[in-house]
């Protein structure tokens, strides 16, 4: 008797669970940087009010976000790794990639700046100097957009940091926030996007040491997942979300999002 | 299922031989008391006869009935009653239901063993005597043709002993064949129609009670009755 009641309850719970994700809703596979900064908490209510489309955000590293989208487990991809995004579209997984917004990367480090890179504007010499000094550097090491960017900069600088992996170069294999927590815990330099940094609460004595290089530019793109590859996607709703983001209204909403009085993302969608 | 015929019964555990070519015949009615020194194999003989364990060799014949059938038509009351973690009533309900008996018999059974007033109490909080009476009621609930009792009154107070003897005597009077292991000489005299005396893995003597107690034939039984250590 007891077992039967419990069984019925379990079934009811299962069915209720299944029904939740239906209706007009889409899943956005996105990056931790956009989610952790609170951008979606600001943007989505505006969009949802207007269209009635519920947007569910799965925030993971760019690498995992793309993999998930390739498995058809999302309707929209919103990440920051242009080359990988273009490949995603070329392979037929996405309908079209549009530049959406940008911010920039910065290199943060402890106030006492053991590698003496404070105030440097060019990323590559700063990285070289960190490597030469053998100062600790914490990397995402997770194939995310930030990690891809960091690796490209090391290559420019002519340094293969992975040779020192486990020595001064520490690959956390984690998200941006976890890597910042780890880096700060061990006194290492960390490259992070500015949005995450500004909204990050556990800064301790850390400061931005390197910023302002054009090479530290961080472009975000938006791509609806292709209904041809993934018949299960909600193509219409996905398209209207992407369209809204790049519309004048969406763009000004992005520009209006501030943390601690600072604008975190700069809209740069091509005008139609 | 009676008479019972046992021939050449052997029970071994590894190197140890507990029963060694035992032979026994039991008639259709009465109360057989099984006696013998510790380690003579009384409890194991009961389990063999009831079909709970398999002999190493030999033959146990309950009037040609199949082993499974034999166990089903008998009941065994253990020295230490194994009661379910439920109320007194639920312990009986369980057996009545499991064996497809009339559930309405519970009240009569409890009344018969003097536990009607304890029906709702947790069975495992009963005193030793009460617990054993419940075990007896449970055994009787299965309507056994043969009732085995393995020292059911060891470590009980005199009143409890008499209460249990009364219940067993009632069952005997209703035609249930009783096979009763005991060390209690007084109990044996009160209950026995015949006595089986086990010694060194065999039936050393099987005599009617009026013959056994005054004049045991075998030396081991004489020593045992006389309070001497029997090896």
């Amino acid at each position, binding site marked *: 008797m007891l*077992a039967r009641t*419990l*069984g019925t*309850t*379990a079934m009811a*719970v*299962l069915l*209720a*669970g*299944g029904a*939740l*994700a*239906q209706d007009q809703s889409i*899943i956005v596979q996105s990056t*931790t940087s956009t989610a*952790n900064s609170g951008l979606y*908490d600001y943007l989505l209510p505006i969009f949802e009010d207007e269209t009635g489309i519920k947007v*569910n*955000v*799965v*925030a993971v590293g760019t690498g995992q976000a793309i993999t*998930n989208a*390739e*498995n*058809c*487990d999302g309707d929209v991809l919103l990440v920051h790794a242009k080359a990988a995004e273009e490949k995603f579209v070329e392979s037929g997984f996405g309908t079209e990639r549009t530049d959406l917004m940008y911010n920039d990367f910065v290199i943060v480090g402890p106030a006492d700046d053991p590698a003496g890179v404070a105030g440097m504007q060019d990323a590559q010499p700063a990285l070289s100097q960190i490597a030469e000094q053998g100062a600790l550097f914490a990397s995402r090491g997770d194939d995310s957009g930030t990690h891809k960017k960091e690796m490209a900069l090391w290559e420019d600088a002519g340094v293969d940091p992975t040779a020192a992996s486990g020595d001064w170069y520490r690959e956390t294999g*984690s*998200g*941006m*926030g*976890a890597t*910042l*927590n780890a880096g700060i815990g061990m006194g290492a330099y960390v490259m992070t996007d500015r949005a995450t940094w500004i*909204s*990050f*609460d*556990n*800064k301790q004595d850390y400061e931005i040491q390197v910023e302002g290089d054009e090479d530290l530019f961080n472009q975000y793109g938006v791509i609806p997942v292709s209904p041809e590859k*993934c018949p*299960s996607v909600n193509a219409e709703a996905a398209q209207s979300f992407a369209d809204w983001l790049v519309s004048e209204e969406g763009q000004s909403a992005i520009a209006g999002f501030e943390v601690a009085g600072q604008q975190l993302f700069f809209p740069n969608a091509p005008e139609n | 299922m009676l008479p019972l015929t046992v021939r050449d019964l052997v029970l071994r555990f590894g190197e140890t031989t507990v029963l060694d070519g035992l032979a026994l015949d039991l008639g259709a009615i009465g109360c057989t008391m099984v006696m013998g020194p510790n380690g003579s194999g009384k409890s194991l003989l009961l*389990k063999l006869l*009831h079909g*709970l364990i398999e002999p190493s060799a030999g033959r146990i014949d309950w009037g040609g009935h199949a082993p*499974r059938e034999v*166990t089903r038509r008998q*009941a*065994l009351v*253990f020295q230490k009653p*194994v009661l*379910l*973690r*439920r109320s007194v009533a639920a312990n009986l309900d369980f*057996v009545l239901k*499991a*064996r497809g008996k009339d559930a309405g018999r519970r009240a009569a059974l409890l009344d018969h063993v003097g536990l009607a007033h304890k029906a709702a109490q*947790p*069975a*495992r*909080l009963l005193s030793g005597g009460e617990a054993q009476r419940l075990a007896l009621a449970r055994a009787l609930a*299965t309507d056994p043709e043969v009732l085995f009792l393995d020292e059911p009154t060891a470590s009980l107070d005199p009143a409890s002993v008499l209460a249990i003897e009364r219940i067993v005597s009632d069952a005997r009077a209703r035609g249930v064949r009783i096979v009763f292991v005991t060390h209690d000489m007084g109990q044996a005299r009160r209950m026995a129609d015949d006595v089986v005396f086990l010694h060194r893995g065999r039936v050393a003597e099987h005599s009617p009670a009026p013959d056994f107690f005054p004049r045991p034939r075998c030396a081991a039984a004489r020593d045992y009755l006389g309070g001497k250590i029997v090896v």
Partner: protein
Amino acid sequence: MHDIGDALGLAVALVLSGDADLLEIVLLSLRVSLSATVIACLVGLPIGALVAIGRFRGRDVVLIVMNALMGLPPVVVGLLVYLHLSRSGPLGFLGLLYTPTAMIVAQTILIAPIVAALSRQVLEDLHTEYAEQFRSLCLTRLQTIRALLWDARYSLLTVGLAGFGRAVAEVGAVIIVGGNIDHLTRVMTTAIALETSKGDLALALALGIVLLVIALGVNAAVQSVRITAARHAYV
């Protein structure tokens, strides 16, 4: 270490404020993990009972496998469930990924072996006590299993509690199959992971304290049932 003091204050403030988001997260945590526990018991207890009373070839191997599965890493379970429930996976057509149901499935797989292995031990001990009496009563295997499960019910509560504890505390599986989606699949542990990654350690810890208090409450409730049962010698 001022974070710990902050967190305690924050935890109290969060609970007192009756924050709707917090309540939603707590309720989802309970719903997911309790459902997983119930289903894991429906699956695990019969298996535990069968192995407890069974004497069959390969039983030792089954025992080793059952005990080893107790150590299943949540993230591996999450990954396996993800690969099955993904739209491109064999069960993708169900559309269950990123739903509470997917989280229940993952946690059920995670804790069913715990329920099976621990209940096997409990039931085998009880069966040692009952076996001879049950054979004398000529009970069928089904009757034996039912009697064992019922008589061990209070000990099995503790087994269920062990499963629930593991489910409600794990983050690796639910974050992969649930996606930590706000207002949909965010539970206590994934919320804690999120706040940690935002660097809001005090809030993360405060959520952790709330989780701990919930776990304490569930344990206390079960323990009080057991104490009542023990008074009746039903344990």
